[in-house]
């Protein structure tokens, strides 16, 4: 075993230990989650109570406008909300924190394949965060072209003043570099460093999800990186990759090219975010039903199929750009194909619960919450995949509600489940179950109200990214509903503070808990907290799949660890 000598700096700051890096990503992601959440609250205030002064903080933040959010600030806020939530909150939390923490531990590896690259990945991400936040100090504010930042709006030709858009592009390029480093690292680790006996089809589904997400990251982040570099050149040295002349027959640049490049990455990106959640949910449902994950191989293969299909469907974001009818039809067909593998692993989730022995611990509540919100989020994708319905629904709040169901509700519930579940392994202490349950029920009710009614307002015609919906006559009947959504969104926000308090309180107060509080079978539960740099004292040998629960041939307990050799039936391995 390699012996690590760590000073304070190499142990806590520039650490090459995947667990420490995972925790660094965890805190970074948590910080930005609350930052992006605060922006969401302000956005909701403006939509629910248009052009009224923001209570308490308004006078202090925007004294010139009498505490009212002005249209420029509003555009900046939803741009930063989207950017931060996707790239700085969910990505670090799921892929950065849990990818780092879980992959080596669950496959029985001493660390990542490239520990130094791992460290550089986090600090590149940290640099990207500083660059992004620095745009708040610019006199004309941050980027305001939406998280999609379509040129020419996001280029100097588009009339957004100031440097915000350029800083945004640089921050995203740095973020992409960090993500690529992580992705290469995760893929190599899974391919090369699995412990003896840990075949691909013995890996926990969480590792499957993170592995597949990393493959998508490695393939598609370079695509968006190329697009962003071209955008940066447009913004800084005056190239015209994405800038067309004013005349329809004019200059050679093509604004649509950016949309293609963006969505070739952008659609896989939503799967990058949700794949770890699918994996984690599949595992946790099995743990708390005390029953093997139903159709484990089918789930793994179905997830891989979605990965393959995800790269062929980006055009469904562009139905209204005037694409050729043939393309529109093809993209619709390919998009709908995804519903076959998705419904298969979705049914497997229900199959896991069927004839199980269901324990209602907090991680389980959130995992079952994922079944609900992902069910709704996935099904409502059908409207947007339909070319005709999308002519009406595109760029409305319906789309916003739909992707918040999948990306905000499903991914956040998956992340919460993961945090409640692995907290004892990451920080040695179990989060308070009572506060956890209040957190779940509070979030579940409010998140459903908020996102379902966003879809309702979209169906009623409200388009997205508008500062004041009461400008339009056809949206006037919606002002009452918008107010309600805002009220529920505030409660949703308040419940997240319970979660934050739970984390802080648990870390500072409560006692170190037992090694395997959930009686789970995977390898990370075989090591004691604090896990030493290098993880396992000796290389674990794997005999069983990740979900050996309620085996009838063992009597004293209802689970069997992946590396536990049953004495009677050695030949079975």
């Amino acid at each position, binding site marked *: 075993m390699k012996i690590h000598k760590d000073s304070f700096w190499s142990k806590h700051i520039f650490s090459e230990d995947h667990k420490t890096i995972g925790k660094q990503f965890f805190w970074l992601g948590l910080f930005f989650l609350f930052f992006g959440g605060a922006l969401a609250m302000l956005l909701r205030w403006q939509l629910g109570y248009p052009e009224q002064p923001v209570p308490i903080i308004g006078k202090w933040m925007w004294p010139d406008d009498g505490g009212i959010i002005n249209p420029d600030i509003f555009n900046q806020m939803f741009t930063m909300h989207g950017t931060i939530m996707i790239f700085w909150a969910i990505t670090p939390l799921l892929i950065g924190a849990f990818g780092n923490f879980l992959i080596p531990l669950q496959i029985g590896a001493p660390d990542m394949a490239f520990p130094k690259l791992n460290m550089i990945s986090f600090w590149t991400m940290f640099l990207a965060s500083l660059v992004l936040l620095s745009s708040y100090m610019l006199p004309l504010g941050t980027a305001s072209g939406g998280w999609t930042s379509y040129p020419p709006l996001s280029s100097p030709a588009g009339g957004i003043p100031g440097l915000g858009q350029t800083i945004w592009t640089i921050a995203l390029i740095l973020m992409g570099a960090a993500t690529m480093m992580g992705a290469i690292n995760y893929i190599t680790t899974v391919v090369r460093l699995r412990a003896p006996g840990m075949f691909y089809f013995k890996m926990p589904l969480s590792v499957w999800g993170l592995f597949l997400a990393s493959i998508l990251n490695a393939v598609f982040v370079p695509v968006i990186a190329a697009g962003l570099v071209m955008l940066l050149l447009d913004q800084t040295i005056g190239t015209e990759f994405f800038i067309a002349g004013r005349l329809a027959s004019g200059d050679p640049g093509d604004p649509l090219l950016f949309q293609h490049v963006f969505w070739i990455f952008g659609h896989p990106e939503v799967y990058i975010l949700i794949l770890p959640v699918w994996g984690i949910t599949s595992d946790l449902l099995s743990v708390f039903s005390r029953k093997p994950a139903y159709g484990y191989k089918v789930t793994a293969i179905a997830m891989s199929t979605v990965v393959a299909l995800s790269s062929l469907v980006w055009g469904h974001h562009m139905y209204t750009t005037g694409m050729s009818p043939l393309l529109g039809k093809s993209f619709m067909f390919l998009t709908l194909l995804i519903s076959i593998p998705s419904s298969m692993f979705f049914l497997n989730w229900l199959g896991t619960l069927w004839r199980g022995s269901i324990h209602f611990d907090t991680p389980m509540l959130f995992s079952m919450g994922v079944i609900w919100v992902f069910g709704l989020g996935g099904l409502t994708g059908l409207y947007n995949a339909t070319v005709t319905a999308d002519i009406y629904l595109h760029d409305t709040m319906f789309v916003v509600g739909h992707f918040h169901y999948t990306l905000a509700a499903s991914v956040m519930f998956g992340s919460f489940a993961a945090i409640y579940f692995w907290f004892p392994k990451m920080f040695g202490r179990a989060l308070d179950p009572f506060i956890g349950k209040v957190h779940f029920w509070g979030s579940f009710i409010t998140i459903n109200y908020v996102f379902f009614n966003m879809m309702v307002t979209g169906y009623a015609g409200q388009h997205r990214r508008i500062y*004041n919906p009461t400008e339009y006559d056809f949206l006037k009947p919606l002002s009452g509903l918008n107010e309600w959504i805002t009220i529920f969104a505030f409660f949703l926000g308040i419940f997240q503070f319970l979660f934050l308090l739970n984390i802080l309180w648990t870390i500072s107060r409560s006692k170190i808990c037992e090694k395997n509080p959930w009686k789970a079978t995977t390898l990370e539960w075989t090591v004691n907290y604090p896990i030493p740099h290098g993880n396992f004292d000796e290389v674990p040998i794997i005999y069983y799949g990740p979900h050996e629960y309620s085996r009838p041939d063992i009597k004293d307990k209802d689970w069997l660890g992946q590396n536990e050799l049953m004495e009677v039936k050695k030949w079975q391995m």
Partner: protein
Amino acid sequence: MNKPRVMRQLSNRWKTMIHAGIWFKDPPKDVSLDGYRIDSVIQYTDLVIGIYFGIVVVALIYFIYAYRSSLGNGAVYDHGDKKKNVIVTGGLGLLVFCSVDVVIETIAFRDLREAFWNFPKGENVLRIEVLPQQFAWNFRYAGPDDEFGTSDDIIPTQNHMHIPENTPVVVQMASWDVIHSFYLPNFRIKQDATPGMITAIWFQATEKGVFDIACAELCGNGHYKMKGYLTVESKENFDNWLIENAPELPDDDWDDWDDAGEETGIPEEWGWTWKELK
């Protein structure tokens, strides 16, 4: 003394609030020939996903109730990986695909073929060019000679578009600056207008009235008030309106008209004349 009235007002406010919070919201009134197609495909999707999600919820609640650990029954050791299980999951997946996706796709492709991508041709069709800019809508009608880019083109006041009732209208657009999206909620249609390329959409109004035109693609800080008015009127009124808005014919060439254009904020050049699209 005032209290009862205050209470009554309060309770009325609550009633409206509660009604606003839980009552289903209809989309804006459909006044187009083909808008019903979009409403009906959405309603079919509502129905089938309602059924499937209902089944999922019932199963979830039943499993939570029937297999709760407090019953002490223990779990069944079943990997669900036998051929039989895989066939059932795969079969159910296919069933969902056939009953939802294939049907929606058939409806959508039929509607595209029959309506949305089937551009009307002939004498009867009204052609309009739309040139959005930050943050206004410009419209151009061909005028008496039925050709765009000539001196008799009719360019009405910004943000005001008129069309006759029951006449197919083909709208061709390109953007002056950034990407905009021509959104008519009452007609259920939307089309991006992009600089450097020409896009088109068509629709037909079935009712008179004034309806909102909105910009659906983020185009800057004035995006939210980039609002226009579409007036649907009778053929006679429309023709009168065209005559009212006809340009004063210049003495020799149309340079004079250019100067007039600047005052109204309408771009001097449109950049393209009508292009027959395939």
